[in-house]
């Protein structure tokens, strides 16, 4: 299953490192990353493959939310399907 992970918040050192190492720890493969600063806000969109992930979707979501709370940024993970449904025909 593929998921889109979005990270939004105030720019700071170590956001990409923090998120990537968490994903690596649970064996999630990152397929694509797009990152920018929009009006002083850090904005990152990742496409991740959860095929071999050692956690369930819910557990991984909770780990990401906890990391987000720690770094004071919003991290969310959603199945890719919802974006495809809304933006592709």
């Amino acid at each position, binding site marked *: 299953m593929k998921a889109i992970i*979005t990270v*939004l918040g105030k720019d700071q050192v170590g956001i990409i490192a923090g998120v990537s190492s968490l994903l690596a720890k649970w064996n999630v493969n990152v397929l694509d990353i*797009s990152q920018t600063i929009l009006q002083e806000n850090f904005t990152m*969109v990742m496409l991740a493959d959860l095929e071999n992930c050692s956690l369930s979707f*819910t557990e991984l979501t909770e780990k990401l939310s906890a990391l987000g709370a720690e770094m004071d940024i919003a991290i969310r*993970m*959603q199945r890719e399907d919802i974006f495809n449904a*809304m*933006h*592709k025909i």
Partner: protein
Amino acid sequence: MLSRNDILETIRMIDQQHLDIRTITMGISLLSCADSSAERACEKIYDKIGRYAERLVATGEEIEREFGIPIVNKRVSVTPIALVAAASETEDYVPFAKAFDRAAKNVGVNFIGGFSALVQKGMTDADQKLIAAIPEALACTDLVCSSVNVGSSKAGINMDAVALMGQTVKKTAALTEKQGGFGCAKLVIFCNAVEDNPFMAGAFHGVGEPEKVINVGVSGPGVVYHALQSVKGQPFDVVAETVKKTAFRITRMGQLVAQEASRRLDTPFGIVDLSLAPTPAVGDSVARILEEMGLEVCGTHGTTAALALLNDAVKKGGVMASSSVGGLSGAFIPVSEDEGMIAAASSGALTLDKLEAMTCVCSVGLDMIALPGDTSAETIAAIIADEAAIGMINTKTTAVRVIPAPGCKVGDTVEFGGLLGSAPVQAVHPYSSAEFIARGGRIPAPLHSLKN
């Protein structure tokens, strides 16, 4: 990969524009629960709902987490119970409502709809018993919703039932007096009721429906409002096109969720109902969409035209996005549930008469309107008759859900709380319709009902 802007746009819709799946409603046929013993019938009903809807709430929550889209309500609709209860040797149908309530609480859904009767052409003994039980049923249960269909384009309007429903609304208000007549918020009187509507309080599982089915209701007034802000001052063609595109996207999401729910619950997918269903939250209002089209306040001249465009464009966008669009699909105008409508009604700009005109072009009817507590049963019946006539002649669904709030007068506000919001009490005409309602009988179906 998807473009970053598209992804962020979706997230903004969910976070800031109140995009949500309003409801996943499981329709369950209770025809197999008929029994000569009312007690045994109630047990069968409780068991069947428990068996079929056991995983409904958990599945809804799973989908919510994985897709990151809020699913606000999980509900159950059942066969109009007058059809099932008819087999039971009993005069009192209130126990059926209590069985619904227990079953709904057991599976954890927000509401259960189907304490209903279809009496557009006439009433059976069971229908009469059902209608007689409505006030107490709504007063002594928490989650049960009731509806009665009193007219159709095919059959005309059953004016005996209309008169009876006027009294029923009054009794229901009286029995729930302490909560401002809240029972009436769970009672809808329809003309041309649809059999696959997932939205409460009017949901029931029609007799033409399968054993069980998943219907999904999608909402998103905030998203449409936001989209229209980007086309300020442009012609209506552009407005309609913008609404259509937005409705298409929202419905695609609803279709995805509906298919997923259907697969996980091993229940056939029925329909997606794309209805702009407002909530009292700021930024989730249908009235504000109409105002965005250029009206100073919802209710002024031009409101009906604006709503007609909106309702039609929503359907057109939605119909292309789902394999099966149904239910009521369009725009709802429940006064107490819409922040902009509340403001417009409070300021006096939005009157009952204008609301009636708007129901000619919206997807349902007079919805969640508080009336003075001393409004007579005949006046309420006459309001129902007017609304049913609009539905009958225009071959559309219309409905009345009004609350004659006990002890309240024009200018007061009735608080219902939560998604049901608060309603300013609106004036009715002071002149009597009593002799009109006393006639009874049936208003014949219009000429265009003879299509064969």
